[in-house]
């Protein structure tokens, strides 16, 4: 049922989602930590920027990314100076776009989990000679574990399902930017409905399984604490 191109698209999508999720956890954790603790006036604007992809149509985000990452855009000029060329139509470009697009899905659960920890465990750790980094790794990270599980699953799933941004900055290049959602779109557009059904079905089952895992894990962790 699945063509080689379909399989390539699935593989590429998994690779993209894994890369993006890993990056998002690295980038999102300090952002979430800062948002959870800061009293700076910058908290509101930064929080709003992080949340923008929740309300913006993906095509808007994709369009701005296409311009920003283009040769005359500020990201594009930066990447060119680094000798990396421009990012649209590359796997790295998709990664960057997806990181923006999925950011709130990782930052917000982490921020909520970190806020829920409160000040006290940090103070306790400080009175037990734990320095700031020690506190972060031995207290914040383990206590925010439910948040990390949610963030990982949502970040991964949301990147898997991403379409608008990929469409805008992808360029439909096999093994580079042709992910499953684009492949499905192509099948539909090319009137290959049977193949579209197969791939779409796989997406539906996968998404359901992911959400099932998410809600299952939440139930467990809430029992635990």
């Amino acid at each position, binding site marked *: 049922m699945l063509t080689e191109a379909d399989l390539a698209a699935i593989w590429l999508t998994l690779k993209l989602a894994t890369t993006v999720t890993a990056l998002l956890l690295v980038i999102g954790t300090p952002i979430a930590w800062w948002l959870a603790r800061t009293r700076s006036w910058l908290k509101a604007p930064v929080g709003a920027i992080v949340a923008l992809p929740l309300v913006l149509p993906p095509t808007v985000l994709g369009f701005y990314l296409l311009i920003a990452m283009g040769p005359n855009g500020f990201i594009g000029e930066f990447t060119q100076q680094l000798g990396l060329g421009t990012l649209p139509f590359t796997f790295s470009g998709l990664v960057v776009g997806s990181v923006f697009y999925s950011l709130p899905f990782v930052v917000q659960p982490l921020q909520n989990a970190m806020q829920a920890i409160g000040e*006290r*465990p940090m*103070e*306790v*750790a*400080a*009175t*037990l*000679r*734990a*320095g*700031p980094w*020690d*506190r972060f790794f*031995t*207290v914040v990270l*383990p*206590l925010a*574990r439910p948040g990390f599980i949610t963030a990982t699953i949502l970040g991964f799933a949301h990147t898997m399902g991403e379409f608008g941004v990929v469409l805008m900055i992808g360029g439909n290049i096999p093994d580079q930017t042709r992910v499953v959602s684009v492949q499905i779109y192509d099948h539909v557009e090319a009137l290959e409905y049977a193949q579209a059904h197969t791939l779409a079905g796989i997406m539906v089952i996968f998404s359901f399984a992911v959400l099932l895992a998410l809600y299952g894990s939440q139930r467990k962790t809430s029992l635990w*604490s």
Partner: protein
Amino acid sequence: MDKINEVPLLKQKQGEDIHARFLLQRSNSGPANSFNPTNSSMFTLDVEVNIASKGITAIFGQSGSGKTTLLRCIAGLEQAESGHLTVNGDVWQSEKVFLPTHKRPLGYVFQESSLFAHLTGQGNLAYAIKRSDVASSKALYDQVITLMGIESILQRYPNQLSGGERQRIAIARALLIQPRLLLMDEPLASLDFARKQEILPYLEKLQSSFDIPILYVSHSMDEVARLADQVVLLQHGKVMAQGSTSEVFSRIDLPLPMGNDASVVWQGKVVERDKQWHLARVACAGGDLWVHDVNDEMGEYVRVRILARDVSLTLTYHEDSSILNRLLVKVAEIESDDNNAEALVQLRAGNDYLLAHLTRRSIDHLQLKQGSRLWAQIKSVAIVR
């Protein structure tokens, strides 16, 4: 009147005590029901205290008096705008220095359960042992575990423990960091009466087993009378009195939250045991007292609390009464609130003070005034051990 209002300087060697001076202002964003009659929007802590680097010092006062804030300043959890803190000669805070909490060799027991939820009891203890700057010994570990009676519950997670069990583990954890100063912020406040009774004996043993100075925040006279050697009395962020527990508690000019709890605390040595009647004679500075014997060792120092309402006065020595303890006393001061049926009378007994809670009518009847000599009667069964 003469000597009583003086706050005696603590007899510490220079550099072997805790000297703290803090000036801190916070806008009161706390709970709206916090009682602060003078200024509801701003709270100011303005204190200078000298604390003995030995024994238990209670930081005592009503809620909102700044007890916890003072303790947090000492721990470095709160940074006062201006502050100076030396502990046994080490500078923890000055104009130039602010040692962060994790660099201060202290232990801290918080008011409510503060165990790490993601670690077992054992894991919580290991967290402290791993980070202590003093190598831990098996002997110390066993001693702490035994003292706190927590051996059988260490494999459990905090949510599987009772409030009292959690607090005992928290105290053990604070001990295992091997602090040079132990800070306890109302460690019993979140517990019900039964749990309090469960933990108090552990706290009493704490001081005799470990030679660590303890700062103990409390608003309970009962707890302070039972545990503290020294008291710092706070009100509205200011120090009202500091000194030994017996000195501070025997004063009647202080805003102590006394009511029916007015009492003095005496310490003395067991000098005689009456096996037949299960009584022990304790020699105190204020005089000898017969109290009930709870298997005290001869020569042991014990602490007794005499509630003002259990003290009665007679002009003459009565042999023909049930009272075992009769002390010759001299009236030092009489509380001067005429709008009350009752009053506290401060009495000089030997080298210490007693308080008697009397009706004004009795005071008038006995024609009590400063300098009157008479007998104080204390029922043995009423003396709190």
